[in-house]
């Protein structure tokens, strides 16, 4: 298939590479030309998102936030404009960014008016999952388009699930961000407790991985905390943004999420502490700072 891809960041670049590896033809557009360098000779480079929309069967977007998705999908030089110019009515846009469920529903409605079907398909699994094609992909949207897109999604992820109608993928991602945010905080808190007792967190981790408290986050994130490897991965400002989305939704619904709210404050503090560009596992350093360790 002809696959368009927009958003060649930490996650997007390896995801696009996996699509090419699966034998699909890539059509790329990027605001910053340097992000296109790894694809030279391996993809068709276009001058706008609209041109990607004119040439692809499926366009994938993975950008920072709802206004970015809106600009790429619905802007004057956006994917929908390109699809219309090319007279196409069967284009699928798969948005893999993390945005609020109502924003996803709104963009899908406006895309439908332009004859483009949107699937919201945010991911979990971080940079390693993107590189190895083992992402978890949570999809919202209509079944037929999901099935058409499935081979492409499977090129990027190992667990691809149709959760429900449009927006349902983003709801699942919101749940995922509560679990990962709280999980990172729990591991950092536990390791900081061990440290305060003079106990080696590495030994604690090894022991706990054999018991009921074992988890992917204790395994992966815990390991990086012990190695003091705070390189992203997943930048803490994005986790902060995602939890803001979750809590804004909770406010709108009138729903108490006390744990997510507490964790979000730790992410706020990380931004103020200058850790925005570091991985969420840098939260360990925040705990240390609050314990008088520098």
């Amino acid at each position, binding site marked *: 298939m002809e696959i368009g891809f927009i958003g060649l960041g930490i996650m997007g670049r390896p995801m696009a590479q996996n699509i090419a590896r699966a034998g699909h033809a890539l059509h790329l557009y990027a605001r910053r030309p340097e992000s296109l360098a790894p694809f030279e000779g391996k993809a068709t480079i276009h001058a706008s998102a609209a041109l990607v929309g004119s040439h692809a069967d499926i366009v994938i977007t993975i950008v920072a936030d709802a206004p970015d998705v809106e600009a790429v999908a619905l802007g004057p030089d956006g994917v929908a404009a390109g699809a219309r110019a090319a007279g196409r009515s069967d284009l699928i846009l798969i948005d893999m960014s993390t945005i609020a469920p109502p924003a996803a529903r709104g963009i899908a409605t406006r895309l439908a008016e332009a004859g483009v079907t949107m699937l919201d398909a945010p991911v979990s699994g971080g940079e390693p999952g993107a590189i190895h094609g083992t992402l978890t992909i949570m999809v919202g949207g209509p079944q037929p388009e999901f099935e058409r897109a499935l081979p492409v999604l499977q090129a990027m992820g190992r667990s691809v699930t149709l959760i429900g109608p449009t927006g349902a993928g983003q709801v699942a991602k919101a749940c995922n961000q509560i679990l990962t945010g709280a999980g990172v905080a729990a591991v950092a808190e536990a390791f900081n407790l061990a440290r305060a007792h003079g106990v080696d967190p590495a030994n604690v981790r090894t022991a706990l991985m054999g018991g009921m408290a074992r988890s992917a986050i204790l395994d992966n994130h815990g390991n990086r905390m012990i190695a003091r490897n705070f390189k992203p991965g997943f930048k803490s400002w994005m986790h902060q943004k995602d939890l803001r989305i979750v809590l804004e939704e909770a406010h709108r619904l009138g729903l108490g999420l006390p744990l997510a709210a507490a964790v979000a404050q730790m992410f706020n503090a990380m931004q*103020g502490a200058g850790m925005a560009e570091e991985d969420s596992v840098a939260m360990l350093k925040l705990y240390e700072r609050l314990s008088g360790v520098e």
Partner: protein
Amino acid sequence: MEVGFVGLGAMGAPMVDRLIEAGHKLAVYARRIETAKHLLNRGVRLCASPAYLAASCEVVFLAVTGTADVEHLVCGDDGLLEGARAGLVIIDMSTIAPRRAQELAAQAQGLGVEMLDAPVSGGEIGARNGTLSIMVGGDAAVLERVRPLLNVLGKTIVHMGPAGSGQIAKACNQLVLVAAIEACAEAAMLAHAAGVDFARVREAMLAGSASSGALDAFGGRMATREFARGVEARLHHKDFALIADTAAQAWVPVPVSAAVQQQLNALMALKLGREDTSGLLKVLEATRADRS
């Protein structure tokens, strides 16, 4: 000068009364005109649109619910800015997002209209008695021009800084107030669960270091279980979205406010939004097997 007023709610209505009693000539716009009819025989002029109101006034007060209401009144079709002459002063006493207050003031200034954000604290009683605390953001010279009017409504009028800073002060006010209400609810719950009468606990506390306006007013309503009167909790719920948003933008951790916000969310889920914020006690009670 002729004074315009929009927003005849629990706070706005007594403010209008005070301005009339102070001898000011008032003009009013109300979305539902019937809510303002009773003012006709008190010499108040009713206007058909915010634009019309702005055209005939030198100062216009707003006391409405939220950011969207203020935006609509100021910038909407037939809004204040459409009818305003240069030199008009808009005094917005609503509680809205600080950033939007700043943006609206800038937009107004482009048309030669001055806008002050001037949210208040002190409740209905403060509005009736003219003892409100008024937190003002905007041009200090403009504040001095309208200070005589504000003196009719409030006892403490503090200039906080440029546009938007009054709303920041209000966010701080709400954060402290509602956290104190939640603390009262937790104290009431704890006392009750241990078989101690909270009314007596409150009486002692009011004479001690933990005394506060919240303990007096909201704690009082918890003690007598008069949840219907007071401040509609949905308004505090609304304010906490502004606090959370302001804190996240400023990268400030607000762990207590965040926890309080979730209790307010639960209060909304329990359909207690139209009752007083002392209903935070009911949220705690909802977790108990022995709840009344």
